[in-house]
């Protein structure tokens, strides 16, 4: 399916990551955005609020992030593609209704332009410390998808992918930018509308009599419909059966929650995405995502100059985690080095998958800036020993 030309600002631009993300969302067909201003994410909705009135989209600045996320889940049930945008403190407030979105199996996109935390932290400076929250932030068991762009161009391209994945798997997709990428300005090339592939929401063609909102038996993803088409369906944040009716029992919980988890875990091979560079024969593999992936490249160049065989793996989709690939590499490489702008989050996943077969070295950074390449270099040299 090709996108609506009205939302596509074809051409070569000089945009920051926030604007590029906003443009990508509009190109993906997003036509409803609810948000609450928060640095450093606000430029995304500023961009959108200037462009929506000429393309049939609605932006509403809600009273808080609780309301923003609730409005997005509501709007998703009208068939309109929708998104909200925030940063750390707002992301925390959204967790309640991100859980609702997961439970109701609602396609939507949540952009988090990460800053330093905890609490109000460093509003104008970068961080990557919400990456575990993107996976575990709301209570209960569920699986979501998280993506992490490394540049404004990728903010544009990947947010389209985020919308596509949310449609394919009926989940809220977390778009985990960071302040650096959000406020970094670079050339962004927006292709013509007919060259942008998007996944359209596929509404069920079952009749209202035979349609069940959570009937996923025999298929991985239940068919979706929308409000206002005569289905008169019911959906709830409570544990529910295939009719969407609450059922308070351990059996139904098992039926319901296992599906939420399995629909992502069992499709992880299709969802997972990463870039690899010189992995074959490498002694050390550096794993990074977002802005840190770019900083890491300088350290890798330095290490190669010193004769170390370093491979590089850049996570584009962070959740689900590329477990399979890292398990394959474990044992074949001496060590993994994981720089990230937090005190150790994704590194724990790498360590889990390495399962003691390779050493895993974290390179933490508290936030407010990026790593010095020399610090990453030191970790690489250490892991190569």
């Amino acid at each position, binding site marked *: 399916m090709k996108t609506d030309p009205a939302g596509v600002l074809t051409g070569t631009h000089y945009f920051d990551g926030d604007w590029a993300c906003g443009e990508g969302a509009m190109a993906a067909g997003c036509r409803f955005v609810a948000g609450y201003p928060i640095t450093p994410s606000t430029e995304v909705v500023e961009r959108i609020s200037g462009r929506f009135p000429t393309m049939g989209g609605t932006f509403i600045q809600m009273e808080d992030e609780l309301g923003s996320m609730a409005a997005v889940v509501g709007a998703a049930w009208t068939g309109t593609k929708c998104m909200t945008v925030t940063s750390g403190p707002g992301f925390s407030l959204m967790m309640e209704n991100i859980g609702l979105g997961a439970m109701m199996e609602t396609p939507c996109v949540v952009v988090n332009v990460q800053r330093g935390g905890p609490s109000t932290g460093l509003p104008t400076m970068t961080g990557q410390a919400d990456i575990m929250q993107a996976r575990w932030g709301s209570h209960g068991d569920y699986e979501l998808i998280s993506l992490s762009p490394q540049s404004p161009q990728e903010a544009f391209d990947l947010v389209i992918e985020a919308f596509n994945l949310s449609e394919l798997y009926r989940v809220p997709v977390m778009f985990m930018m960071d302040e650096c990428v959000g406020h970094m300005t670079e050339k962004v090339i927006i292709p013509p509308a007919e060259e942008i592939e998007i996944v359209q929401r596929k509404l069920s063609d079952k009749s209202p009599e035979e349609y069940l909102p959570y009937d996923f038996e025999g298929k991985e993803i239940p068919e979706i419909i929308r409000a206002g088409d005569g289905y008169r369906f019911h959906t709830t944040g409570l544990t529910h059966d295939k009719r969407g009716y609450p059922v308070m029992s351990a059996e139904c919980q098992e039926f319901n929650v296992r599906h939420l988890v399995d629909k992502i875990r069992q499709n992880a091979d299709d969802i997972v995405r990463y870039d690899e560079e010189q992995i074959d024969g490498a002694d050390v593999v550096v794993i990074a995502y977002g802005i840190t992936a770019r900083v890491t490249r300088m350290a890798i160049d330095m290490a190669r100059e010193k004769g170390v065989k370093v491979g590089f793996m850049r996570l584009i989709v962070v959740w689900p985690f590329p477990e399979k690939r890292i398990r394959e590499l474990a044992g074949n490489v001496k060590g993994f080095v994981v720089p990230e702008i937090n005190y150790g989050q994704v590194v724990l996943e790498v360590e889990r998958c390495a399962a003691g077969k390779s050493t895993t070295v974290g390179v933490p950074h508290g936030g407010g800036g990026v790593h010095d*390449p020399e610090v990453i270099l030191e970790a690489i040299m250490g892991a190569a020993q």
Partner: protein
Amino acid sequence: MSRAEIRITGFGGQGVVLSGHIVGHAYAVNAGHHATMIQSFGPEARGSACSTMLSISEEEVLYPYIRRPDIFVVMSSEGYEKYCDELKDDGTLIYEKDLVEPQPKKGQKAFGVPSTRIAESLGRTIVQNIVMVGFFTGVTGIVSREDMRKAVEASVPSGTEELNLKAFDAGWDYYQTEYGEGGDSKDEEPQEKAEEEGKEDR
């Protein structure tokens, strides 16, 4: 040029970020290379130290931060004191003549322009940064005058293009008069040419 690093600094309200944006736009979009701009500013909207960093390269910029700038553009004395030490020993210093008293190291080249005064003479202090961009273009020659003019036109608020181009030309002319080979270069290109360029709304 494989890679050059530029720092532009001043106080909030001087249009530091916009001038960086114009330089980056000219180099990346109009000249077809790559330019990565990073900004840092305090939480105050006006008056605080403000700085923008540009990494320009003919190849894709991987590492987006600057470490030792090749070019340091400075529009406030506070900014000068904060960042002067990081300029490369053979770097280029471009400064606001009335606000900054630089002490360049041996080997560093320094070029001053009274950009605020020139902007005042044009009637609007606010275009000081564009005067500086014009002067910068003359000093560095990293992109053609025309590519930079187009970037100015595309980046300033609509309705203010004429004033801003005038400011740009004034900065450019100041360089030619004070440092150039003496030629007043206003006759180079017809100034309306850039208008057909698709306007970006930023």
